[in-house]
């Protein structure tokens, strides 16, 4: 089967790599429009304070300043998942990152100078930064009208009888883990350009991951501004990294819109790196309590998890990460009895949002560390323990996920083989090996009522194909895999296919680039449209060649008859014929694919995704007991991806994910003091560099996924999920201490070693 494909399964270079390589790709920072002004935002000086007075008169008088906005001279626009945020705060600030005023000026320097002229008088309020403190009765209320700091999002999943199972378990382990605040660090900082036409229709040049949901959010904002019935067009420039940071609409975008409307000029806002660190939202930190048990043979009996998440002062879509955390908690390994509760808590910290994995890295860290603890308690090798409990195809999990394809066992075995597990494990000589597995949605995810994606395909006079898709490319390669599957279906080459994916006026609807869904959903959508186009073309070809349609084959830009291969016509010629004929026709088609997956019900159960991606990572470490330094000697990753449509781009997702995961495990941490971020630069917030790349191997395992486009599943997020527990487990194997809070710094290792010596 494999060898028959011309485009699918091939390491085709990324479609936009050429323009990126020659420096011609246009990012938001590169965009300049005639008459464009530059917007700058003034942020709060306190983590929690009443705004007593704002005086903008000096700023307004500065030559070159075209508008100064505060919460007091704009209409009320409520934003966020909980509608508990406004673009510019009025009455009160809730966090150091809260937006207080904004300026538009003819150049960025004047805008900056104007900010310094704005006088804000505050009355500081008591603040709370620890979610456990914030849950106490006497804690200061972040949002008074909410009456409590605990969000009214009752995350609770129960399957089977955990208490009974615990009683009957032969071995039980229980522990607490902590994961910290980390941030996306997209190399391209945030930004947008807002433009109104004279009739008040808005165009927003944007880097969003959700163009069509953003369009709706901004439409709401226009309504609040009194501009009903006006149009919003979202055009995405080249996007300098996403990783979930653009799954919400953000205050700065609304501020640009408000400034553009006030000034009647295009307004651009771009963030400096310091602003990016301080004023965009990170991954949720969490305190995780987990208990697991197994029977005498080592079969898992139950898993019981409680979590407290620091929501920060406002609520983004990221507050729904507990719904995704349920996935590994209920369905990573076969565990019959499951209980999970989570509380998201308001604090005066920066508010959190989605980040690659969407809760999965946090949950998997606790689960997979606990798996090793339980294996040890039961006296079973951790790899054997995982194999014994691994998921299998055809299984229905306690959360009612229907597992179609599943190669978790093969992934675990591959990791064992690549690491030379049997020989390396259990030495406790400063070197050690560890592993961890993952499950993630790989066939879309019904987070919203729709999980759909639209495609329009047209073909031109020369046999070239234009695909208009709702999908967005954030660097992962959606543009390329869509071209590959369409080319395969229509018998052309990937380079014959142009993918247009960045304009809400031109492209059909899509719910957004999240949940590792784009390859699965957008390619299925593109395939649907391609099949319709193909049927039209074959009808024409049947007439032209006087052969029945079922005898016709489209291959390598030619249509020929199977039984009479000499009967053939070049695709471009056939299409020209269609256009240049009396009563001619345009060959094009549209298709909307919305997978047959289920929204989670009131009990948070249902087949959330059409398919599930699995994987396992393994690592060999050397730990210096004198310095606490961890050196990764080898890092291996095995991923069950269904069919790899583009193995080269897929490997890139694995390597990139793993390096992000290693950073999460060992080096990355946003340091906050009284609500203020103290390390907003790349010297102090340590993401990994080329020097830190360990020897790394990736193995792609390709079980056929029946619902996938050409058998494929998603791979965008899985690569960063199991790194941290694999490393923590390897460190334990090396030196016998378990670090339970991330990141695993040399200081923590030394302290743990000291503690161990004492006892």
């Amino acid at each position: 089967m494999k060898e028959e494909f011309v485009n699918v399964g091939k390491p085709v270079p990324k479609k936009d790599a050429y323009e990126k390589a020659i420096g011609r790709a246009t990012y938001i920072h590169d965009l300049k429009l005639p008459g464009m002004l530059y917007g700058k935002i003034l942020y709060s000086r306190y983590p929690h304070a009443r705004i007593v007075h704002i005086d903008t008169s000096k700023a307004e008088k500065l030559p070159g300043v075209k508008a100064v906005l505060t919460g007091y001279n704009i209409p009320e626009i409520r934003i966020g998942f909980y509608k508990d945020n406004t673009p510019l705060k009025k009455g009160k600030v809730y966090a150091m990152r809260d937006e207080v005023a904004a300026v538009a000026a003819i150049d960025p320097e004047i805008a900056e100078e104007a900010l310094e002229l704005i006088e804000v008088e505050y009355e500081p309020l008591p603040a709370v930064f620890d979610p456990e403190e914030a849950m106490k009765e006497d804690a200061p209320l972040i949002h008074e009208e909410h009456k409590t700091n605990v969000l009214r999002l009752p995350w609770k999943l129960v399957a089977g009888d955990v208490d009974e199972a615990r009683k009957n378990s032969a071995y039980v382990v229980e522990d607490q883990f902590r994961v910290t605040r980390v941030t996306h660090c997209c190399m391209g900082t945030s930004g947008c350009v807002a433009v109104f036409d004279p009739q008040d229709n808005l165009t927003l040049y944007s880097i969003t991951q959700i163009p069509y949901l953003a369009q709706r959010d901004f439409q709401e904002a226009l309504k609040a501004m009194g501009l009903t019935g006006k149009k919003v067009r979202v055009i995405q420039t080249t996007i300098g990294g996403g990783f979930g940071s653009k799954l919400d609409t953000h205050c700065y975008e609304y501020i640009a819109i408000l400034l553009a409307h006030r000034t009647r000029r295009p307004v651009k806002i771009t963030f400096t790196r310091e602003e990016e660190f301080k004023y965009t939202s990170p991954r949720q930190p969490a305190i995780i309590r987990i208990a697991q048990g197994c029977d005498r043979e080592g079969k898992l009996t139950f898993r019981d998890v409680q979590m407290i998440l620091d929501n920060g002062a406002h609520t983004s879509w990221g507050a729904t990460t507990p719904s995704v955390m349920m996935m590994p908690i209920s369905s990573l390994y076969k565990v019959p009895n499951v209980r999970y509760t989570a509380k998201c808590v308001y604090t005066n910290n920066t508010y959190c949002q989605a980040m690659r994995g969407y809760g999965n890295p946090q949950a998997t860290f606790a689960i997979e560390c606990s798996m090793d603890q339980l294996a040890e308690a039961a006296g079973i090798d951790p790899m054997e323990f995982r194999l014994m409990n691994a998921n299998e195809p055809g299984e229905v999990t306690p959360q009612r996920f229907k597992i179609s394809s599943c190669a978790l066992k093969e992934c675990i075995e591959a990791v064992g083989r690549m690491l030379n597990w049997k020989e390396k494990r259990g030495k406790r000589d400063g070197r050690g090996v560890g592993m961890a597995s993952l499950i993630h949605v790989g066939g879309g995810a019904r987070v919203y009522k729709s999980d759909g994606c639209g495609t329009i395909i047209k073909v031109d006079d020369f046999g070239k194909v234009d695909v208009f898709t709702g999908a967005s490319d954030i660097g992962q390669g959606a543009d390329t895999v869509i071209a590959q599957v369409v080319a395969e279906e229509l018998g052309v080459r990937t380079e014959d296919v142009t993918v247009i994916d960045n304009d809400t006026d031109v492209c059909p609807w899509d719910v957004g680039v999240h949940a590792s869904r784009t390859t699965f959903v957008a390619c299925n959508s593109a395939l649907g449209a391609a099949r319709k186009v193909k049927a039209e073309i074959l009808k024409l070809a049947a007439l032209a060649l006087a052969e029945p349609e079922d005898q016709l084959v489209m291959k390598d830009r030619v249509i020929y008859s199977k039984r009479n291969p000499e009967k053939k016509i070049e695709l471009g010629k056939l299409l020209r014929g269609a256009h240049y004929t009396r009563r001619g026709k345009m060959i094009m088609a549209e298709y909307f694919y919305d997978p047959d997956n289920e929204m989670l019900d009131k009990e948070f159960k249902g087949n959330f995704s059409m398919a599930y991606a699995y994987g396992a990572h393994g690592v060999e470490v050397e730990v210096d007991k004198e310095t606490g330094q961890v050196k990764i000697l080898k890092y291996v990753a095995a991923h069950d991806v269904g069919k790899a449509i583009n193995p080269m781009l897929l490997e890139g997702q694995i390597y990139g994910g793993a390096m992000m995961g290693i950073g999460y495990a060992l080096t990355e941490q946003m340091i906050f003091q009284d609500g203020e971020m103290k390390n907003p630069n790349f010297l102090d917030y340590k993401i990994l560099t080329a020097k830190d790349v360990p020897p790394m191997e990736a193995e792609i395992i390709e079980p056929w996924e029946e619902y996938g486009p050409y058998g494929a599943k998603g791979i965008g997020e899985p690569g960063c999920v199991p790194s941290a527990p694999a490393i923590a487990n390897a460190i334990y194997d090396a030196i016998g201490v378990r670090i339970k809070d991330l990141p695993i710094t040399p200081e923590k290792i030394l302290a743990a070693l000291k503690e161990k010596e004492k006892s």
Partner: protein
Amino acid sequence: MRKQISFLLNGEKVEVEVEPHWTLLYLLREVLELTGAKEGCGMGECGACTVIVNGKAVVSCLFPVMEVEGAEVWTVEGLAETSPGGLHPIQRAFIDNGAIQCGFCTPGMIMSAKALLDENPNPTEEEIKTAIEGNICRCTGYIQIIRAIEAAAKGGSDEGGVR
């Protein structure tokens, strides 16, 4: 007070009036409209703005504009435009090896690689890692970038220079 400077930019002589406090990146992006070099941090920590001055890779966001007087400056745009087929072998290798995802770090990464290969046509993996240590990439995990630079180096030696 503006001052006139002249230098060689991508092989062509440029004369331009500058404010002495400008950085080279500001001159390139805002005045000469060469937006290939990116500003990822503005503090010399990420390398997205890397260009080559007199054969050395420099972070142009910190490089004082007055110091390019009389210098030879190469940017990612010049690399493509002066190569046969509109693509330098390093750029070709980046494209072919999956070294480009979001692409924001790519121009700087390619210029660091160019400076390395000009000086050391057959670098070891460690030498490659050292040469791009100052260029941060969040997407790729660097592995395919390192492979691309190795491939460009090999391509160069096999075919005696530019492919």
